[in-house]
């Protein structure tokens, strides 16, 4: 295929996508001239270019569309439902032909039979449709017609007055005459202010001139290659940083390398980002078609279309999203009569929302439909033997809802068609989890259902905790890590409790099943904690299965680049990939989900886990991290704490007087109200060998930015109680009751942004003062 044709295909497809978007918009705003103009231009461009490239059939079809669109734009035909349906089918027709061109490179060669058929079907029924069209013009029965063609032709007739009908009829009765008639029409349109038909590219170029000049099409394979290379660079950077850490001469250089790599990585990742509108835009059409065939009335609201996601991930969530939407329409939103009877607006509301939250994008599909009948879910699950009745009786509503995601559940629902909801929800979950995401479900009977998908921003580079076992390093993706438990040597003998052969750890009053990594990897090992050194339990949450992984040791967290494993090693079923560490060692990436499966962490613990997660989520709102700053106690809202880092003082750099920290490639303003850095630096300047002063930085989230807070010690995590001013009863801001002491809450917003470069920790200092 030559460059010109390829360009034409890409442009046409973009044009058609735009047209589809506009068409569904047109339904709500039938008088919008700008929309009509946009649609017209899309078809017009295709027509013009096809004529130029010699794709006669495509040209003919586009001609027809343009014809109808011209009438629409001139106001001779109203944009009724029927017309829009017809135009949507025209769109499908054009797409089919474009696909042919894409496959064969040429319209007339190869498997041409199907193409001609497609076109003849589009041509033939025009005459018949003329007759049929009047009865069919009313309700949207037409859309459900067996073939797209019946929808295409009758559309203009009902609304179009006498002037339009003859043209359509003439075309259909004598296809050869079509081209002669239509150019006249096209000329008429030109007169009406549309750019000349001979230069098809022109109108579009004019419309998008500013963007066209500053953008460039890049092959995705090239982007993938760039991403791989950047991954390599990140690895090399990690190694360089580790190798040069001791050499002060190299520090500046390696820092520079660090920054540039981080920037480059971000840029390349950005280049791969696409707005979710790319897939959202396909949804109105689907919702429209589906709601009509299901007899629902639905209003679709979309939000956060500009949210961006890696292209490969975007592709991957298309199916789950479609599935979730279908579910919402099919099982969520009730038929209009039912809705009326329930006192709701007969038009259901379907919301599609995308928003970025940290390193994840959350995509929500919510409806205001009937919700999920929890009892039905429970009965179904019991019937399918997925859960025992005793067990089910113990479960709360939310846990019961999660049963919908079980594979056996959905199959049953599909076969018997009894369940209220849940067709293929396991498919949604599997697909989303495949790309490292999570699915949550919320439903209230009678009020509606929300399916929430949490998708990581990128796949290739992920943060991971490096753990040691069997004298080897393994990477544990941070995404599934919920906390780390440290067991000092003196507690090694008593920390673990046993039920027969099952090791358990009592974590905040709940029993956590344990998996010993060394035992898992080498069955000859025994399950016990080493009494002569520190032991660590990584508390993991894999698809709702919660368990503790006992590891021999911890190393620093690292950003790792995921490399695929050969099939032989993938079949072991424990590793999701491998990576190169900064130490130049290879590390296998552990797959928490597979470990849970292998260790038989089953449903029972899954539900307990889910309940616990929920509880801790609720509790987190009022929990604080209690820290000590130069002898004073202060509290940081736990929900805002990203990480507690112990690092050498040399990692702190200065912009003017402002201390900053290069944290995972991002610059953090560092708040040092306690003046910890200065004395530590003095200690540092005393040449005491390679021994480097360590400081503790609490990395917190403050809205969209991150800030670091230097503390002397981290004391505890505790739930705070709101304080009320005596007499007035108003809630006291900036303080909380922690462990029976009034404690100042660190005002993260008070940390001045870096751009100002002005230290402004008064606010913070004040709040810390209160508790004194």
């Amino acid at each position: 295929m030559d460059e010109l044709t390829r360009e034409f295909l890409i442009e046409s497809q973009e044009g058609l996508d735009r047209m589809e978007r506009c068409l569904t918009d047109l339904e709500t705003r039938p008088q919008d001239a700008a929309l009509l103009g946009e649609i017209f231009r899309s078809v017009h461009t295709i027509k013009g270019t096809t004529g130029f490239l010699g794709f006669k059939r495509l040209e003919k079809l586009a001609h027809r569309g343009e014809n109808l669109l011209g009438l629409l734009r001139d106001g001779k035909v109203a944009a009724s439902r029927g017309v829009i349906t017809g135009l949507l089918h025209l769109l499908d027709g054009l797409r089919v032909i474009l696909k042919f061109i894409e496959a064969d490179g040429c319209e007339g060669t190869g498997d041409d039979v199907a193409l001609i058929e497609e076109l003849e079907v589009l041509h033939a029924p025009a005459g018949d449709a003329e007759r049929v069209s009047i009865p069919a013009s009313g309700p949207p029965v037409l859309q459900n017609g067996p073939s797209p063609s019946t929808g295409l032709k009758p559309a203009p007739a009902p609304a179009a007055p006498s002037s339009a009908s003859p043209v359509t009829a003439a075309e259909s009765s004598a296809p050869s005459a079509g081209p002669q008639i239509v150019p006249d029409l096209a000329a008429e349109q030109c007169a009406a202010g549309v750019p000349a038909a001979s230069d098809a590219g022109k109108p579009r170029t004019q419309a998008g001139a500013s963007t066209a000049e500053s953008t460039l099409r890049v092959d995705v394979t090239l982007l993938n290659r760039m991403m791989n290379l950047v991954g390599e660079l990140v690895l090399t950077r990690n190694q360089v940083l580790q190798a040069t850490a001791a050499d002060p001469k190299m520090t500046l250089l390696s820092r520079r390398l660090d920054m540039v790599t981080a920037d480059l990585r971000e840029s390349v990742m950005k280049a791969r980002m696409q707005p979710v509108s790319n897939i959202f835009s396909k949804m109105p059409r689907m919702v429209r078609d589906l709601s009509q065939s299901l007899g629902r009335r639905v209003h679709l609201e979309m939000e956060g279309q500009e949210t961006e996601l890696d292209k490969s991930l975007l592709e991957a969530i298309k199916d789950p999203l479609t599935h979730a939407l279908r579910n919402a329409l099919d099982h969520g939103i009730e038929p209009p009569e039912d809705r009326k009877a329930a006192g709701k607006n007969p038009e259901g509301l379907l919301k599609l929302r995308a928003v970025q939250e940290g390193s994840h994008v959350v995509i929500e599909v919510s409806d205001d439909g009937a919700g999920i009948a929890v009892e039905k879910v429970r009965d179904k699950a019991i019937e399918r033997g997925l859960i025992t009745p005793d067990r089910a009786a113990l479960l709360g509503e939310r846990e019961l809802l999660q049963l919908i995601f079980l594979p056996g559940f959905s199959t049953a629902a599909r076969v018997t068609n009894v369940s209220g909801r849940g067709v293929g929800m396991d498919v949604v979950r599997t697909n989303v989890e495949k790309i490292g995401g999570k699915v949550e479900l919320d439903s209230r009977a009678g009020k509606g259902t929300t399916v929430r998908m949490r998708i990581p921003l990128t796949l290739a580079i992920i943060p991971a905790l490096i753990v040691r076992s069997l004298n080897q390093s393994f990477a544990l993706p941070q995404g599934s890590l919920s906390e780390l438990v440290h067991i000092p040597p003196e507690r090694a003998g008593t920390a673990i409790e046993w039920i027969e052969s099952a090791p358990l750890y009592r974590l905040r009053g709940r029993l956590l099943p344990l998996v010993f990594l060394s035992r898992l990897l080498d069955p000859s090992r025994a399950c016990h904690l080493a009494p002569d050194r520190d032991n660590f339990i990584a508390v993991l949450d894999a698809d709702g299965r919660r368990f503790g992984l006992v590891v021999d040791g911890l190393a620093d967290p690292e950003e790792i680049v995921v490399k695929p494993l050969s099939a032989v090693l993938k079949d072991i079923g424990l590793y999701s990939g491998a990576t190169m560490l900064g130490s130049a060692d290879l590390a296998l990436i552990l797959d928490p989900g597979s470990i849970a499966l292998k260790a038989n962490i089953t449903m029972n613990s899954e539900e307990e886990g889910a309940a616990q997660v929920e509880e801790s989520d609720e509790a987190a709102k009022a929990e604080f991290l209690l820290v000590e700053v130069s002898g004073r106690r202060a509290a940081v809202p736990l929900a805002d704490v990203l990480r507690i880092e112990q690092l050498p003082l040399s990692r702190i750099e200065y912009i003017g007087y402002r201390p900053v920290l290069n944290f995972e490639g991002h610059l953090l303003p560092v708040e040092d109200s306690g003046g910890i850095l200065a004395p530590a630096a003095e200690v540092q300047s005393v040449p005491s060998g390679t021994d480097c002063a360590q400081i503790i930085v609490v990395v917190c989230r403050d809205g969209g930015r991150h800030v670091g807070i230097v503390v002397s010690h981290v004391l505890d995590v505790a739930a705070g109680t709101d304080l009320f001013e005596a007499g007035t009863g108003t809630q006291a801001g900036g303080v909380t009751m922690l462990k029976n002491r009034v404690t100042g809450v660190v005002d993260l917003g008070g940390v001045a942004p870096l751009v100002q470069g002005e230290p402004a920790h008064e606010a913070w200092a004040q709040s810390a003062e209160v508790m004194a």
Partner: protein
Amino acid sequence: MTAPATAVRNEKSQAQVELCSVRVGKTMFGVPIGHILEIVGSARPQPVPLAPDYVGGLVHYRGDVLTTVSLRQLLGLPPCEGAQDILVLESQGGCFGLLVDSVGEVLTVSPADFEPNPSILDRRHSALLAGAYKLKDHLLVMLDPERLDPMRLAQEMAER
């Protein structure tokens, strides 16, 4: 008999064949150089717990992670202490590394000197080896990269 060496003989019987010689234990083996992408010297592969025995571990190779096959293990020899050399081989299933004790030189042999596997060779070895060339003072045992492909080995293990 699908050994590349035979194929070469059938096509042009007089053409010389170039082989890379490698040593494992006391035996000299030959690998057709057409299948060798690269030779990586003195590598220490990262062991993979729970992997099949014949997997020698993972090595970093040009930005990717390469699975290696331990020839020692396949031949039933005790594991080697210290670094080994790796032949990066290309098979239909993709790339993999072959762990050998040391890589020798490139030899040019005449197809006329080729002999297929002897019938007295046990099944395990005859599945791995692809005949031998008679050199002046010793035999050069042929290896067929396709037969050493980890995927293929995994299939064979499953069939057994």
